[in-house]
């Protein structure tokens, strides 16, 4: 009985011990704009549900208009960084705001650099 318990504890400890350490955490952001963008994403994630529900009240024709006006004020009172519109899909490596391909989250220059060095899986120079 004690043997089984200890065995179980050992097995659990082996799996638990590395899991207690955090997973991959990025501690380096290329510049402050990237950091601000990261903060905005986090806030948008937190307030996403609330914003969706308040918008559902605002954007329908069934509920009375007074209620919708109140909802308007409420959503305006939420923190500004919580709206998803403020998020900018920057390049992950260079924090470039423009020329970013969504699939790879990289700016066009970095993408070209890696593709030419054959470090992008399945990407080939076009020729037809």
């Amino acid at each position, binding site marked *: 009985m*004690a043997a089984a318990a200890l065995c179980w*504890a*050992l097995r*659990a400890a082996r799996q*638990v011990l590395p899991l207690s350490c955090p*997973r991959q955490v990025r501690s380096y952001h290329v510049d402050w704009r990237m950091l601000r963008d990261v903060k905005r994403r986090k806030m948008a994630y937190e307030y996403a549900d*609330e914003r969706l529900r308040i918008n559902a009240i605002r954007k329908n024709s069934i*509920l009375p208009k007074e*209620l919708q006006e*109140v909802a308007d004020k409420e959503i305006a009172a939420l923190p500004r960084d919580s709206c998803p519109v403020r998020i900018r899909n920057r390049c992950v490596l260079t924090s470039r705001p423009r020329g970013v391909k969504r699939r790879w989250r990289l700016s066009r220059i970095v993408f070209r650099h890696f593709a030419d060095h054959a470090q992008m899986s399945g990407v080939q120079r076009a020729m037809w």
Partner: protein
Amino acid sequence: MKVEVSYRKKLQQLKASENKKQAVNKLEGPDSESSMRQGITENTQRDKPLNPELVKAASAVASSLPRNKKQTESELLAQLRRHEETTDEQKKGRTINIRNVISEMTVKRQSPAQWGARISSRISLQLDEDGQRIRPERSSTQSMDSRSLKVGKRLNIFTKASTEPEHALKTVSSPTIWDLEFAKEVAAVTAQPPRNGFEEMIQWTKEGILWEFPIDNEVGMEDDAEFHEHIFLEKHLEGFPKEGPIRHFMELVICGLSKNPYLSVKQKVEHIEWFQKYFEEKKELLQEI
């Protein structure tokens, strides 16, 4: 307690005992067989009277010694008895009767901590190349006796009488904090750095950095609810008024939720409850309208 005897006396003693042993063996022949049938224990041999010639020799030796004669005589006789017993046993081929010794022993009970220490020493955490644990080599229990295990007196260890130690062990509850800490320590100490890329990937998979292949799309999604709990959500609408625009609105909400495959039942219920709270807060405003 040894009697201080000079070397000459020792020789005399030895000679006397040797002379008498030969005589004793002839006499003891029939006696030994009968006692074997009875089941020999040390007590029966002590009760057997010594050879009278031996007694005479012992008394003679004691008289020759300068000290207290009666005391020396009794001590000599006791020693003779012991010699006889050992020689008898050796002649009959039973040197150390392990079974007799073990049968009189009781089960030693250890505390659970000692148990754990023992077991952990037995379970080695080192991984072989195949990934199987290296077993600590156990000394073969059969090498203790040259005889087979099925021969001999029953030891009565594995019968009903011995279920007590098992019950005592079962009272140990789930692993204590100390057990967990010990287990963590052991895991940390025995964690070897990965030797190659495969072991690195194994470690990452354990940590959760790497997904498990073949990829299971429903990892982390443990929705045990049945389909009817997703679709028939009207029972959650009990807190709302039965008529009016709010009811109409909530029915639309429920219709949308029932078609949503991405949310769990909990999330849907939370969604509805949020609306309930919201409308309760705005009750005064609604009544003005």
